[in-house]
């Protein structure tokens, strides 16, 4: 000892007056026991389950044993192993006996593995082992009988060793620590200054004697004359039951580890007046709880410095510290060998009277090295990090385990406390591990019926980010004999093996989240036992394409959206796992929970809306009826021409219709805002109503004229100056179009759609100067940057940066905007005199004049056969007859007149760049208007034998035997070869527009080539011979002959053509041609004549009402008359279906078959009667469901069917609440190779087809599965429940 201690040395606090001061006296444990035995000879010293001894008895028995040992030659300086079962009186008797013999005892736990026992015996050089029943077993070089010491044992001196206790070293080999009587007795005496016990106290002996804290138990009792009460070993192991035992045995003093104390109920502890915790960090909540009813101390000390070095009382609400050194102990907080100032962390180094020594001299020299800075010649480096503060020392953590994350020191106890706080966790331990890459990892091991992911999530809420541990669930924590968690024995994977992956640890020891770990296990299945880290590349690990396909096959069970391409685009474990979690979210995202059908009131309100809308369509009928009667005396009450004129102006003119839309949208949709609403909400009804009103009143003819922008502004869109709109925007859209932007034809700018059970509303922004290509869908919320360009047939979601060219479904970046355009704007950018406006306006009137002219030949015929012109027949029958005759003549005449007009107009069209509102621009627009004019009553001109001559009359070249169905954008620059087939709704997009320019180019389709429904062919496309462009496909520009293409962008997909009887597909015999011609002509006339007959009937009914009930009732009744007429039209269609077709069945029918012709006939009937008569107003309402059910389809409750593109009805199965958005197509047939193939499609409950999306035959959409806009589900594909898909063809949609 130095007389002038270094200021960095911390010693025991100065005692209160009257207490013993300074270092405890030099004496031996034997001296202590002798003193106690003398003071309390009759007090109970040992109260074991198998025997009880008073101090006198115990003293006598120990002396006997000591003599026996002495008789065997055992004496001072010798070591005797004590291997007696725990919990027995013999154990403690043996210890005392060895001490009395002057030898040091070496505790050997009888439960230890034999190898460890052998190791301990060898290292400690014991001369004898005391076993169960106090049998003494000499070992080593025999000293028995040497009789050097004689029968009287020689008592030990303070310098003799009292015990040698082995601790587990970091290397796994036990390290023996020898402690002298001097140190041991000093420890007992120092503790006696902290705690006063009496002979009435009963001290638990629960710890293994292999653990030096057992010395505390023993000598707490024997120093004060209290009773030592050993607990049976199994009870200690069980832990919880020990609590009851404490109560039963009247234990008043307990020294134990916090882990064990945590298991005891407060009720078991009420007799315990002193509780000493030690051996591991005590969680504050536990310490505080226990301290509420008794004296509780927290102690700290390594075996190397004799059991306990420092201690502090635990006071509820105050931080738990390890406190101050015991009397005689000296400690210091060092960093790099120098003391650190109070408040800073450093390693705790212990000096003073308690220092033991290692049996291994090398280790001893290392760990008990001098500390020159303090003048210590010998001190023990604990490896523990502490901070010295006002309340004493505070434990921070193990130096070995010390980690810094973001500059923060991590305390394992804090993490353990957080883990323990998770409900369901019974025990926890945290450990610090190093990955192969030398990254420090925190691992939390927990026991309990818990899920590691949720435990991790819970502690993440308590702990600072960055120190949230990996969580591993174990069946039990490995315990050292001391009862402490054996951190070293906590499992740690060798790396990359299945066990490691199951715990979420990669080959380099990096933590893996649950997606990554699961995926890594799947990789191992395919690749064999490879080392997998987060950055491992599937292909670099030996994965070939087949392995990738096998992997995907397995992954798809959990992640139905994954595709083989995902492995190539996301080759590392981290990337692919990220992709999986994206897909996982997609699965969970699609409307969780059961799908509920919309409320009944909604459908009823829609039907009321349809009747209200019929009022508008009834106006021309009513006006016509009264005007006709005024002129020709049909017997109706006379209505003044002024009244009729005013009614016409207010209700039937274009300005009137625009006014109605303005009023409706301003009144009904004033509060429209982006968001997600219920599909059966009041807002949804209003949106639906305004949209249908727009459909019933808007003028598509304005699209592409200078009037369109003005019109759009009137109906509520925000349109900048100079914007050119070929699509007329609808009322009720949150649409913003920047100055000089171009919207090509058929762009969906509605900004809302039905997404399963929700109505999604979003605003749409088209930046100044941007171009949106034809047939593009702008999703709600789409924002197109200034001057950006969107290619035709795209789906735009989210934001498109300014100045870029995007395209695809959904759109991706393709290049720079304006790449394929002249740099400068055209000369004719504006229309200074407004003259062009009037050219467009006059052209609309010209169209009407043309249609009127077509009626003249019919009227002439009526006059020739004696009709009383200009009036019609006086009897209803005669009137009907005359009307039908006129219509019959009017149809061919108008077809011919339109074709001739088109031929003349299209003469102007030449390829190249032209100003949009120049003459060529006008010709293209006017051509479109004329063609569109005949879209209803000339519907049957398409896909018939009449199509080719009709197109030829227009100047469009079509090769022989080619089949051409409906199309947009036709003009003489479009050419068809022979035997080709152009199916429904083909978009010939030979015209594109931007910045006031239009670019016109031709399109050609070679011999025997096929264009699938909705295909888009841009200007300059040259489809060769024998090629195929699939459904909704954006055709490549110049594909080689004999190729098949599908998708946006188009991908070449070779296919094996189906061979059928050529006389039924390409080369029909004459009788089949004649038969088909008859059917085609019937198809052109019969539906039209039926429409005319129903129209006459409606007029007659209105007249009848007017005559019988007066003008006002006739006006009020007219909408109902029209609805009734529509119902009749639908009924005729339904009758037609059952008469002509019966039931549709899956199968194949060649083009030249009666079945296909009947099918086409029914299509025309539906289009002209049902759709035009009623369903056009009733899209999205229960009327569609009722109609489709009548036609033989299976339609559940509350289905939203906003499309009439439905054909083979028995093939349709729509579950409750299924949604087919506007323009979507339930395509239950394909027409490749001139064979009509029919197959079923099913939409599960709440399943949704986005706007203009299509499902092909033999498809299933699971419940609540959503297919995005303009997307295609290919033939035979089944999409699992509650998933989202987008694309042509569909892939998993992770962004929608």
């Amino acid at each position, binding site marked *: 000892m130095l007389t002038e201690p270094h200021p960095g040395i911390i010693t025991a606090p100065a005692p209160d007056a009257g207490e013993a001061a300074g270092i405890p006296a030099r004496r031996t444990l034997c001296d202590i026991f002798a003193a106690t035995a003398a003071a309390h000879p009759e007090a109970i010293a040992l109260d074991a389950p198998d025997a009880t001894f008073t101090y006198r008895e115990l003293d006598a028995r120990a002396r006997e044993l000591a003599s026996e040992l002495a008789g065997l030659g055992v004496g001072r300086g010798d070591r005797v192993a004590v291997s007696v079962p725990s919990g027995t009186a013999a154990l403690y008797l043996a210890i005392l006996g060895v001490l009395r013999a002057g030898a040091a005892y070496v505790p050997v736990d009888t439960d230890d593995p034999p190898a460890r026992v052998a190791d301990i015996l060898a290292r400690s050089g014991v001369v004898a082992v005391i076993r169960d029943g106090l049998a003494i077993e000499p070992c080593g070089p025999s000293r028995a009988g040497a009789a050097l010491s004689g029968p009287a044992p020689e008592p030990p001196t303070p310098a003799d060793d009292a015990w040698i206790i082995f601790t587990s070293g970091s290397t796994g080999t036990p390290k023996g620590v020898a402690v002298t009587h001097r140190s041991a007795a000093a420890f007992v005496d120092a503790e006696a200054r902290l705690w006063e016990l009496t002979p009435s106290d009963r001290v638990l002996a629960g710890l293994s004697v292999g653990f030096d804290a057992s010395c505390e138990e023993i000598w707490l009792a024997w120093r004060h004359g209290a009773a030592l009460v050993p607990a049976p070993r199994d009870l200690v192991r069980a832990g919880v039951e020990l609590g009851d035992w404490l109560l039963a045995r009247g234990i008043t003093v307990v020294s134990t580890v916090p882990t064990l104390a945590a298991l005891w109920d407060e009720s078991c502890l009420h007799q315990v007046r002193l509780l000493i915790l030690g051996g591991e960090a005590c969680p504050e909540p536990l310490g505080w709880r226990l301290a509420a009813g008794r004296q509780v101390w927290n102690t700290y000390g390594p075996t190397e410095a004799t059991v306990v070095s420092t201690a502090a009382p635990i006071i509820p609400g105050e931080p738990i510290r390890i406190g101050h050194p015991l009397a005689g102990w000296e400690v210091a907080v060092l960093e790099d060998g120098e003391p650190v100032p109070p408040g800073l962390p450093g390693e705790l180094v212990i000096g003073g009277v308690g220092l033991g020594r290692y049996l291994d001299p090398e280790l001893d020299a290392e760990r008990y090295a001098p500390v020159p800075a303090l003048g210590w010649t010998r001190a023990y480096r604990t490896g523990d990090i502490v901070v010295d503060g006002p309340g004493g020392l505070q434990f921070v953590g193990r130096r070995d385990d010390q980690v810094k994350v973001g500059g923060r020191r991590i305390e394992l106890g804090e993490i353990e406390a957080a883990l323990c706080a998770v409900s369901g966790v019974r025990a926890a331990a945290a450990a610090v591990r190093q990955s192969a890459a030398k990254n420090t990892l925190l691992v939390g091991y927990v026991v309990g019926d818990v899920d590691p992911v949720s435990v991790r999530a819970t502690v993440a809420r308590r702990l600072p980010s960055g120190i949230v541990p990996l969580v591993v669930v174990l069946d039990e924590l490995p315990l050292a004999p001391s009862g402490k968690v054996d951190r070293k024995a906590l499992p740690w994977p060798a790396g990359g093996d299945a066990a490691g992956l199951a715990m979420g640890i990669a080959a380099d020891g990096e933590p893996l989240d649950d997606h990554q770990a699961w995926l890594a296990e799947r990789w191992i299945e395919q690749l064999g036992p490879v080392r997998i880290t987060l950055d491992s*590349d599937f*292909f*670099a690990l030996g994965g*070939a*394409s*087949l392995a990738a*396909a*096998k992997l*995907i*096959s*397995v992954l*798809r*069970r959990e992640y139905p959206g994954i*595709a*083989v*391409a995902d492995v*190539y*685009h996301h*080759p590392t474990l981290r990337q692919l796992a990220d992709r999986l979690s994206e897909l996982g979210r997609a699965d969970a995202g699609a409307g969780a929970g059961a799908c509920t059908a919309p409320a009944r009131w909604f459908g009823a309100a829609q039907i009321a809306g349809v009747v209200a809308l019929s009022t508008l369509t009834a106006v021309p009928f009513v006006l016509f009826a009264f005007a006709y009667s005024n002129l020709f005396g049909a017997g109706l009450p006379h209505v003044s021409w002024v009244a009729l004129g005013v009614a016409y102006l207010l209700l039937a003119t274009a300005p009137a219709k625009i006014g109605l839309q303005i009023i409706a949208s301003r009144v009904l949709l004033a509060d429209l805002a982006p968001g997600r609403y219920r599909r059966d909400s009041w807002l949804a009804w209003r949106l639906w109503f305004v949209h249908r009103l727009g459909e019933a009143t808007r003028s598509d003819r304005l699209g592409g004229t200078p009037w369109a922008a003005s019109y759009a502004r009137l109906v509520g869109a925000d349109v900048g100056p100079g914007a050119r709109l070929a699509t007329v925007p609808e009322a009720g859209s949150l649409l913003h179009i920047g100055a000089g932007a171009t919207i090509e034809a058929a762009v969906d700018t509605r900004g809302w759609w039905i997404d399963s059970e929700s109505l999604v509303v979003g605003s749409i922004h088209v930046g100044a100067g941007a171009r949106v290509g034809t047939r593009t869908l702008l999703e709600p919320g789409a924002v197109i940057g200034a001057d950006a360009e969107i*290619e035709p047939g795209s789906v735009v979601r989210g934001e498109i940066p300014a100045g870029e060219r995007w*395209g*695809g479904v959904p759109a*991706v*970046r*393709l*290049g720079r905007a304006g*790449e*394929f355009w002249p740099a400068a704007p055209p000369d004719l950018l504006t229309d200074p005199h407004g003259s062009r406006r009037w050219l467009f306006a006059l052209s609309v009137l010209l169209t009407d004049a043309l249609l009127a002219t077509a009626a003249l030949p019919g009227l002439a015929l009526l006059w020739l056969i004696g009709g009383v012109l200009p009036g019609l027949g006086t009897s209803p029958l005669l009137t009907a007859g005359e009307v039908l005759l006129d219509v019959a003549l009017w149809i061919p005449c108008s077809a011919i007149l339109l074709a001739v007009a088109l031929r003349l107009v299209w003469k102007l069209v030449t390829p190249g760049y032209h100003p949009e509102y120049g003459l060529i621009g006008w010709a293209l627009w006017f051509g479109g208007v004329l063609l569109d004019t005949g879209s209803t009553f000339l519907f049957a001109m398409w896909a018939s034998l009449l199509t080719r001559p009709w197109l030829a009359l227009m100047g469009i070249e079509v090769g022989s035997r080619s089949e051409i169905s409906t199309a947009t954008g036709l003009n003489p620059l479009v050419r068809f070869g022979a035997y080709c087939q152009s199916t429904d709704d083909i978009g010939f997009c030979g015209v594109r527009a931007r910045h006031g320019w239009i670019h016109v180019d031709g399109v050609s389709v070679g011999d025997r080539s096929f264009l699938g429904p909705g295909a888009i062919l*841009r200007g300059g496309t040259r489809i*060769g011979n*024998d*090629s195929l462009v699939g459904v909704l496909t*954006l055709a*490549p*520009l*110049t*594909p*080689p*002959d*004999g*190729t*098949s293409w*599908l998708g*946006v*962008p*188009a*991908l*070449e*997909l*070779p*296919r*094996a*053509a189906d*061979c059928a009887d050529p006389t039924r597909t390409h080369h029909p015999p004459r009788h089949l041609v004649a038969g088909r011609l008859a059917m085609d002509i019937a198809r052109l006339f019969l539906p039209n004549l039926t429409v005319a007959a129903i129209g006459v009937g409606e007029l007659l009914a209105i007249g009848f009402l007017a005559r019988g009930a007066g003008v006002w009732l006739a006006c009020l009744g007219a909408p109902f008359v029209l609805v009734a007429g529509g119902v009749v039209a639908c009924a005729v269609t339904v009758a037609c279906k059952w008469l002509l077709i019966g039931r549709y069945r899956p199968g194949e029918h060649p083009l030249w078959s009666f079945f296909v012709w009947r099918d086409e006939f029914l299509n025309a009937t539906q289009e002209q009667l049902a759709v035009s008569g009623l369903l056009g107003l009733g899209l999205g309402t229960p009327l569609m469901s009722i109609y489709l059910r009548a036609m033989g389809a299976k339609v559940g409750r509350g289905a939203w069917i906003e499309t009439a593109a439905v054909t083979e009805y028995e093939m349709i199965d729509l579950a409750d609440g299924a949604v087919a958005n506007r323009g979507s197509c339930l395509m239950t047939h394909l027409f490749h190779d001139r064979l009509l193939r029919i197959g079923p499609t099913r939409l599960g409950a709440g399943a949704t087809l986005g706007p203009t999306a299509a499902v092909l035959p*033999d498809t299933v959409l699971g419940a609540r599965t959503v297919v995005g806009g303009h997307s295609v589900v*290919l*033939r*035979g*594909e089944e999409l699992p429940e509650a998933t989202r898909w987008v694309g042509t*063809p569909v892939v998993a949609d992770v962004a929608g």
Partner: protein
Amino acid sequence: MCAAAEPVVTLLRGGRAEARRASPPGRRVSRSYSAPYALVAVHDGPVGVDIEAVGPLEPGFWASICTPSERAALSGADARAITSLWSSKEALAKALGDAVAYDPRRLESPRFWPGGASGRWRARPLDLPDGFVGWVCWALPGEGGDGDRAEPGLRSLEGVLADADMPGRGPEPV
């Protein structure tokens, strides 16, 4: 221009280095590896070749590489037939230029082409040592060449797919 109608396919013992040495410059080449063999196909037009070792397959695997019509035709097939189906699709996808762009569930195997022909495409299975299956697919040289090269519209998009990191995939024009 006179061009050979069929590609020349060579089976080698070796790996990438050997296959590379066997690839003549200036021609279209496709390579495939399955230890200890490598296949090299040389042609004047698009060509794809694939070799696979027949090994055990999971019961559900076959369905995940079949188109709906193949699913009906292939039910109950053995590992060799399924591996061959995969190989035929792989060879075709390589010949088509961008193997990754093709989902095997959407690419019809040339195995079912009548006479091994579809439009300008031809395919045939290869006669390989026991335990291995392989296919070669190629396009007949014809007008229009490789088609889409000059397309302004979606060229870049296709470029994105073609540039993707695809270890060991696709024909490598030498």
